[in-house]
């Protein structure tokens, strides 16, 4: 029930945004995550953005994992 999926914000009007989720556009509420800009990714749960997805952190995690895998 705690499923969350990442979506890219493509349009914002007041506290509602349109997010691209795997090619489909969805209306999401920004009540819980108001500080978002167009182009940023958010984590979506039951129609609400609940957190921004930090692209830099994601890249750093992947980079670390790649290095670890190569060092074996």
């Amino acid at each position: 029930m705690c499923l969350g999926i990442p979506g890219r914000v493509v349009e914002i009007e007041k506290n509602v945004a349109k997010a691209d989720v795997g090619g489909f556009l969805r209306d999401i509420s920004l009540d819980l995550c108001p500080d978002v800009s167009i182009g940023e990714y958010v984590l979506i749960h039951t129609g609400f953005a609940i957190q921004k997805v930090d692209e830099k952190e994601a890249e750093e995690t992947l980079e670390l994992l790649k290095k670890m895998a190569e060092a074996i």
Partner: protein
Amino acid sequence: MKFIDEFRDKDIAEGLIQRIQKTSTHPIQLMEVCGTHTVSIFRYGIRAILPEQIRLISGPGCPVCVTPNADIDLAIALSRQKDVIIVTFGDMMRVPGSTSSLQKEKAEGRDIRIIYSSLEALKIANEHSEKRVVFLAIGFETTSPTISVAILRAKEEKLRNLFFLDSQKRVPPALTALLQSKQVKIDGFILPGHVSTIIGTKPYQFIAKEYGRPAVITGFEPLDILQGIWMLVQQTEENRASIEIQYRRVVHDEGNPIALRKIDEVFEKDDSYWRGLGRIPDSGYRFKESHKQMDVRNFNVEVEPTKEHPECLCGEVLQGIKSPLECGLFKKVCHPENPVGPCMVSIEGTCHTYYKFS
């Protein structure tokens, strides 16, 4: 999809598995608390690829599964009132109560509607001012802020016909109950990623400080889970216990303060009853005085006496004491088309996951 596909890379996964194999020397039993983790672990065959000494057990992290029968019976009793519309997340429909389920009641003609977002409840209440609309407020901390937003908006809009059956749960107190239980040994926790998006790391600190166990907040893709397990193995081998974040792309120490404030505006902590775990201090909520008028528990409805199937092991499964394979009903009487207990109903229920993947 971005942030999903790259965390399913096979070569990196193999490297991580080798790391885990090389690092792990001690037998450990880790609990994945969240049902979404259980599904991922089975879907990607993670149990089978781990070294023998690392055992994963499933925990109580499925809100539908831990909702007590009495609350389902109350929802059913409310649905039978002539002027009531029940709105609910889909997972609740097939959960068996003492003698019926919401799905059966819907087939009998009761007005029960499935919604995806809490905000749809407001729309339904606005469109049916002659009815009382009751939203079944089920979920962990991931969902509670969204329910709180709906409640705050209902008050702003002066909606007088929207009510909430609060059966929400807070995860950290359940972990205390599990750590205090003598029936299951837990050497570390794979902590729920999306609950932690909201609550951050602070509410988990007691796991390390008071119980000396490591815990890692983990994402849901295979690389996330393998890295989370590797971080737990490292802590174990280095004899450390701390709360670490693997799922850094969406989890921060402070959580989501805006979401936490929304919950705090509407609810205060209260004891709550969990199927299998019983009453746990501070593991749920009650309405604050300012929003009490929306609490459906103020209604005067007669609810049938609660009873549970005597052979259903859902309670033990939720605590990690028993595996679904040890239940006499599993696959024989109890299957997804005819679920006896909620763990077979929810797509995140441990029994449902075992049924699907084993």
